[in-house]
């Protein structure tokens, strides 16, 4: 254990304090073109008459691309995991969110690129957008996605992620009280100080050098290779220096389109989003809608949980099915509830596609669970710390997806919180540790779970 407790140098520490760290936007290649995008001004619309001829004829414009230029238009970030593709690299015939890219221009300077984007002709026919996930099931709700208004491709072609554990009916029959709550955390923009940026330099032999701010270099490599239908040995991806990501640089936002422009123009091409684009067009953390009903005893044991989650995926699926799956596995938070009935849907809306952000899929349900446990304590007139300690994950308990906990930290964390808030716990709670349940803390409803996790 030479490293634990030692002061280790950051490999990039001196570079950071001397201004020598080379971020993507700091790479200097002579002759680099600027890029600007024509983006959808509407949440939802069909379009026709896309005409880039005036833009292409402008002095200083070196390449213009639209959907017709992309060898494989639709490719999903999780295609390799069997999740089908639904999102075109550039919009074709319709737009599904405000800010969706339709065409891109590479030009000698920023002003020329902006003027060329203005010169692109397109006729929109606006459609009614769907912006509230709670409306997705309404008969008169706009149908906004080729798969329907929610994702239908979970294993076995199920249209939701389900968890069933124990007997939810028994739990609700035995309950003294049912405590319900609805929790709706909003979307959050990642706001990295470095906006989305890529620089692609074409080589004479057809190879492309891609400087990327990605957090997920091999994702980007695979996504670019698929859209461009190139073997991986034609791509040299340079990454690892990220000016803040927080999950927002997992999606491949700029590299693919820069690569197409570099191929078409034969010139190095850089695309750096403005702060406005970053706020309006980049992915966000998803907004969620969570309905929780817990079957509880009057002394604070949670016997069962029924939960419905709607995850706002925005206009396309991207990583949301994965995020919702993580959410379902963690939907009891840091607590053990033996009887579960969980349904979770990935719902499409005409918002920017949502994506990973610190604790992807889990922070939403942690927020819901913690708020709900305090609500339970309030309804029952019990101490909120003691309700938490009672139901805390203990060694030998199982998670919603039946993972046996070997080192759960709920008890020490809750005790530290009580300590930090100058709360004095009753002696039986103060004496608790994370070890296997026994005695009063092994109530009847948890006996069978502890004996045989597989029984559930």
């Amino acid at each position: 254990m030479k490293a634990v407790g030692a002061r280790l140098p950051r490999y990039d520490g001196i570079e950071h304090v001397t201004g020598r760290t080379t971020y993507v936007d700091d790479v200097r290649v002579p002759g680099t073109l600027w890029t600007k995008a024509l983006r959808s001004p509407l949440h939802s619309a069909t379009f026709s008459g896309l005409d880039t001829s005036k833009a292409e004829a402008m002095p200083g414009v070196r390449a213009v691309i639209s959907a017709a230029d992309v060898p494989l238009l639709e490719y999903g970030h999780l295609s390799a995991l069997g999740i089908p593709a639904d999102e075109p690299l550039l919009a074709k015939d319709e737009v599904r969110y405000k800010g969706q890219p339709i065409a891109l221009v590479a030009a000698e300077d920023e002003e020329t690129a902006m003027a060329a984007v203005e010169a692109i002709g397109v006729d929109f026919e606006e459609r009614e957008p769907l912006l509230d996930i709670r409306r997705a099931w309404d008969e008169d709700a706009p149908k906004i996605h080729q798969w329907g208004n929610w994702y239908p491709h979970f294993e076995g072609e199920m249209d939701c992620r389900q968890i069933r554990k124990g007997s939810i009916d028994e739990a609700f029959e035995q309950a003294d009280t049912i405590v319900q709550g609805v929790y709706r955390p909003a979307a959050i923009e990642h706001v990295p100080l470095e906006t989305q940026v890529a620089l692609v330099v074409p080589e004479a032999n057809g190879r492309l050098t891609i400087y990327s701010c990605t957090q997920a270099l091999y994702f980007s490599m695979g996504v670019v290779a698929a859209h461009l239908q190139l073997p991986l040995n034609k791509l040299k991806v340079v990454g690892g220096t990220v000016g803040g990501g927080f999950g927002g640089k997992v999606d491949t936002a700029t590299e693919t389109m820069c690569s197409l422009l570099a191929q078409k123009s034969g010139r190095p091409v850089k695309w750096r989003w403005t702060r406005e684009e970053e706020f309006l067009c980049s992915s966000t953390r998803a907004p969620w809608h969570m309905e929780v009903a817990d079957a509880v005893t009057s002394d604070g044991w949670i016997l069962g949980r029924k939960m419905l989650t709607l995850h706002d995926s925005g206009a396309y699926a991207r990583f949301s099915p994965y995020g919702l799956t993580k959410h379902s596995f963690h939907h009891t938070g840091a607590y053990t509830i033996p009887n579960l009935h969980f349904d979770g849907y990935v719902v499409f809306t005409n918002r920017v596609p949502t994506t990973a952000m610190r604790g992807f899929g889990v922070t939403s349900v942690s927020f819901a669970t913690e708020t709900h446990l305090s609500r339970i304590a309030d309804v029952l007139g019990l101490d909120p710390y003691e309700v938490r300690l009672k139901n805390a994950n203990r060694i030998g308990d199982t998670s919603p997806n039946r993972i046996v906990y070997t080192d759960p930290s709920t008890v020490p964390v809750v005790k530290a919180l009580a300590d930090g808030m100058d709360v004095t716990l009753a002696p039986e709670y103060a004496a608790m540790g994370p070890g296997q349940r026994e005695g009063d803390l092994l109530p009847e409803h948890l006996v069978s779970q502890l004996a045989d996790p597989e029984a559930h």
Partner: protein
Amino acid sequence: MNLTVNGVSRAVQSAPLTSLLDVLREELGVTSPKAGCEQGGCGACTVLVGGEPQRACLTPVGAIDGAEVTTVEGLGPPEELSPVQQAFTHHYAAQCGFCTAGMLLAAEAYIERGGTDDREAIQEALSGHVCRCTGYVKIIDAVAAAARGDSFDLTTTAPGAGMTNLGGVS
């Protein structure tokens, strides 16, 4: 036009309304000031103009013709770090590093005008700077240490020391 950038006189060809940020980055190749928001909100482009912190993205170069401009490249090379650079290194005050240049220059100016290790005063001096990695505690620790004149043994945190020199921990 002409600017003295980190002690070196540089001729400037850009139009007078070009931002100082674009002049530094695109014309002169000085890349430590960052284009974080380009509207004065984040502080990542901050440089010293005549010793005072200034938003390079909001400064038309024509308005400061002839001025002395200092960027982080002018503070100290890796082998001769300034006290503020040393403090940032020692206290791990840079995470992704994108805000660091602006933070360093604001801190440099704060200490130059006699700033102390008072944490509230440091917060005020750095209040125009966003660290989205939210490393503010370590940044304030570092500025306070530099303001106090703490000395640092960076041999345990210098590149190359690596796993073979763990500061006496074995």
